[in-house]
């Protein structure tokens, strides 16, 4: 609590330091001699980055600036004015119409926070930072709860980490990139998304099915690209404080600075901590780990539009220490307590350079380079897992046209180098591996600007352990009518499976590990290879003067080879190459509708048919709900004169029954988990452009799994298991947070 009080105090101090404001009203006089209030006028201090926009009644309020007293008024269709303000605290301005010197377009329609385009060839959903705010807590892995394209599940009862899935497949089958650099992979597969603080994210692009070949061959069921805050676009200072009823504290601080007319920098600081201990289900184990962590990111942006150059340089470091296991202090144990620690640190650096020929705008060149080192040391009872990955990635991309801009192409080279060092399990078996690959790609896109577009790409990669191979991918879009669009995609993907890193929950069990095949290049196993194809149809409609749309998706992933992770036998976990069929078929129907100008409604039904050949038979994937139903309502009141507003958000999730692998302690479920309902909600009060408070609850329907840790009395025995998790472990969690933009 102390932590929280200190933060509140800090905020109050900052608040009282805050500058004084100049306020006023902006209007113009029309041809009929009436005075009309002007909305959307940009008001900013000359040669400074401080700027505001007038509201629908023409009111504005801008902090006084010491360095200048010249205020600029700018609006589309009006003459720009520069006014010397002097000591005034209030100033009303009258603009003059001017239709000859227009130099800026201001569009002021509220955008949907999740956007699906009719015109993009690929099935891409764009998620804005505003949408991310709806899931107030806290990192990217927790931010998909209001998004029907991605499912979130829990991987084990010890670490509480959430796993994302798309089209019925787990996150290792997704290519997760950060600004088009492959990021959450290898050693960071399980925790990677949880190490990206939500407030750092500017937007996310989710591609369903086969995407582009540009970022590599690894994506199988889809791609998620995360765009982080850019120095040029962000507010000068941003502060966010969060506290949950389960004792979690989060602090975010962003500082944005202009270094010269071309160079901007941003510092992003994030800290989190939870030292409170909860065991609400009385199994002797902590319901969530205690942790301490911080992330630092400093990036520079060079923008030289005259010469067509944009460049980024970023340096980043994160550290996170988690502790979980038995609550030794409160249990009077006669044996050794089962404890777990996961300590991670990671350093990232990247450099990007983009050049657009100012005379030939369709020609551009991009270069990027990234280095990271990821280090995880962990133990779970007497089992051990350490992994270190050094990674280097570079790519070069060239864009141009063939004939005219209806025919574009992208071509380039990628090079990647990964060096893994692992120490696995109680006997500390050492696995070392180096993956090197160089690849070239060519992607052609055609758009007739009307009803047809396509993206056809192929890449050829030479990989030291996967071999040399082609990866072809095709996306087609056909839009026969204004509001009807069909999309088809087909393409292949492959990856080297990091079996221990991807399935780390194995160490929080007493299961013995069986590695069955012994001749392949990865732990004796072969690379995974699959073909993904799918069809999507979207139909827009207008009902009661409000827009809506229906989307129907059907995607199939067919595995040529897969590493079968077999939990079927109690007390053991086996990894082996697929011998037979494996597929994931996903069907989704989604309805989006704006009930009124202030209410948006989203609903989705999803059916997953994910089956593969196990040694024990052809079965549905365990812990994968066959059916899911999702509903989200968001409401926002109109902004009043002072920019005050209410926002409300409510999500309903129905999770269908899931097949459970056999375990004697779960026999009462008869092999299938019960279906259940999850409810989340959030309320935000916007006090001004600069200050807002939010309050929310997760799992407010209070559904939890009764006995999440099996054989918790004998954590060192072979029947001990914390991975057969189908529902939340934590009862309703309430949280409160503050956001401050200065």
């Amino acid at each position: 609590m102390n932590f929280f009080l200190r933060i509140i105090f800090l905020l109050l101090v900052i608040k009282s330091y805050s500058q004084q404001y100049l306020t006023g009203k902006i209007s113009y006089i029309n041809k009929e001699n009436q005075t009309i209030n002007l909305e959307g006028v940009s008001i900013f201090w000359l040669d400074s980055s401080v700027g505001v926009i007038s509201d629908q009644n023409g009111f504005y309020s801008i902090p006084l600036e010491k360095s200048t007293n010249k205020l600029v008024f700018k609006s589309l269709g009006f003459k720009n004015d520069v006014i010397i303000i002097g000591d005034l605290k209030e100033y009303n301005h009258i603009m003059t119409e001017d239709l000859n010197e227009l130099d800026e377009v201001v569009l002021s329609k509220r955008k949907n926070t999740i956007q699906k385009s009719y015109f993009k060839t690929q099935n891409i959903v764009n998620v804005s930072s505003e949408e991310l705010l709806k899931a107030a807590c806290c990192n990217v892995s927790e931010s998909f709860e209001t998004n029907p394209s991605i499912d979130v599940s829990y991987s084990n009862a010890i670490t509480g980490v959430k796993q994302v899935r798309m089209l019925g497949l787990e996150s290792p089958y997704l290519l997760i990139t950060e600004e088009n650099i492959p990021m959450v992979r290898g050693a960071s597969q399980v925790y990677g998304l949880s190490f990206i603080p939500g407030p750092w994210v500017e937007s996310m692009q989710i591609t369903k099915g086969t995407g582009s070949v540009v970022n590599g061959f690894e994506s199988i069921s889809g791609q998620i690209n995360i765009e982080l805050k850019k120095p040029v676009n962000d507010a000068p200072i941003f502060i966010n404080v969060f506290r949950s009823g389960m004792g979690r504290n989060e602090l975010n601080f962003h500082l944005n600075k202009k270094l010269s007319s071309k160079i901007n920098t941003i510092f992003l600081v994030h800290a989190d901590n939870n030292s409170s201990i909860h065991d609400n289900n009385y199994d002797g184990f902590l319901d969530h780990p205690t942790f301490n962590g911080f992330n630092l990111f400093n990036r520079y942006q060079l923008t030289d539009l005259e010469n067509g150059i944009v460049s980024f340089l970023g340096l980043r470091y994160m550290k996170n220490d988690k502790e979980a296991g038995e609550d030794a202090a409160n249990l009077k144990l006669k044996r050794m307590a089962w404890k777990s620690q996961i300590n991670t640190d990671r350093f990232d650096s990247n450099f990007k350079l983009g050049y657009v020929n100012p005379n030939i705008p369709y020609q551009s060149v991009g270069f990027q380079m990234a280095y990271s080192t990821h280090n995880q040391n962990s133990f779970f009872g007497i089992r051990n897992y350490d992994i270190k990955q050094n990674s280097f990635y570079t790519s070069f991309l060239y864009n141009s046209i063939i004939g005219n801009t209806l025919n574009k192409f992208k071509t380039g080279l990628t090079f990647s180098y990964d060096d893994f060092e692992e120490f696995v399990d109680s006997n500390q078996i050492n696995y070392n591996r180096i993956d090197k690959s160089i690849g070239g790609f060519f992607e052609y896109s055609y758009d007739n600007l009307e009803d047809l577009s396509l993206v056809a790409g192929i890449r050829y990669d030479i990989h030291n352990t996967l071999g040399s191979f082609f990866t072809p991918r095709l996306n087609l879009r056909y839009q026969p009518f204004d509001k009807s669009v069909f999309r088809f995609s087909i393409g292949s993907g492959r990856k080297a499976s990091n079996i221990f890193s991807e399935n780390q929950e194995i160490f929080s069990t007493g299961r013995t590990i069986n590695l069955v095949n012994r001749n392949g290049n990865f732990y004796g196993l072969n690379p995974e290879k699959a073909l993904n194809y799918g069809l999507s149809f979207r139909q827009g409609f207008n009902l009661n003067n409000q827009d809506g749309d229906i989307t129907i998706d059907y995607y199939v992933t067919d595995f040529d080879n897969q590493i079968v992770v077999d939990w079927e036998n109690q007390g053991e976990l086996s990894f082996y190459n697929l011998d037979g069929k494996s597929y994931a078929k996903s069907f989704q129907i989604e309805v989006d509708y704006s009930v009124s100008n202030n209410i948006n409604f989203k609903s989705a039904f999803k059916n997953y048919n994910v089956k593969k050949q196990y040694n024990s038979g052809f079965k549905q994937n365990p812990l994968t709900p066959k059916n899911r139903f999702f509903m989200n309502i968001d409401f926002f009141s109109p902004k009043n004169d002072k920019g005050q507003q209410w926002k409300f958000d409510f999500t309903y999730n129905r999770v269908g029954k899931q097949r459970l692998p056999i375990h004697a302690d779960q026999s009462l479920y008869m092999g299938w988990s019960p279906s259940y309902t999850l409810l989340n909600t959030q309320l935000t009060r916007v006090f001004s452009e600069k200050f807002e408070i939010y309050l929310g609850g997760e799992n407010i329907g209070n559904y939890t799994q009764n006995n999440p840790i099996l054989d918790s009395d004998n954590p060192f025995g072979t029947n001990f298991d914390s991975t057969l998790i189908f529902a939340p472990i934590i009862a309703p969690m309430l949280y409160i947070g503050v956001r401050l933009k200065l």
Partner: protein
Amino acid sequence: MKYLFVFLFFTTSFIFSFQKDDPKTVNSTIKVSGVCEMCKSRIEKGTIKLKGVKYANWEIISNNLSLIYNSKKIKLDSIKKKIASLGHDTDKFKAPIDVYERLPECCHYKTSSIH
């Protein structure tokens, strides 16, 4: 041998990339009358589909149409003529009255202002 493959992928692209020095490729900016997004779409679509036109971008606010085209394949006057035939005035060619009249309401640039 296989590295040659990757290399080939890459170098083929540069065949296309030296258009800058090509004397036939001309950059030009002309005024085209119009007022809205629909005008923009009509002007750009009509222009880019002409043989020899590589790039066309029309700005609503300035009414400037930026063009890059191959002067061997098409003359600027024929581009202007084509745009006029779609209903948009250029400096040299004016749109036929009947075509202009048939444009959607929002595109009537002679009577409405930029929106």
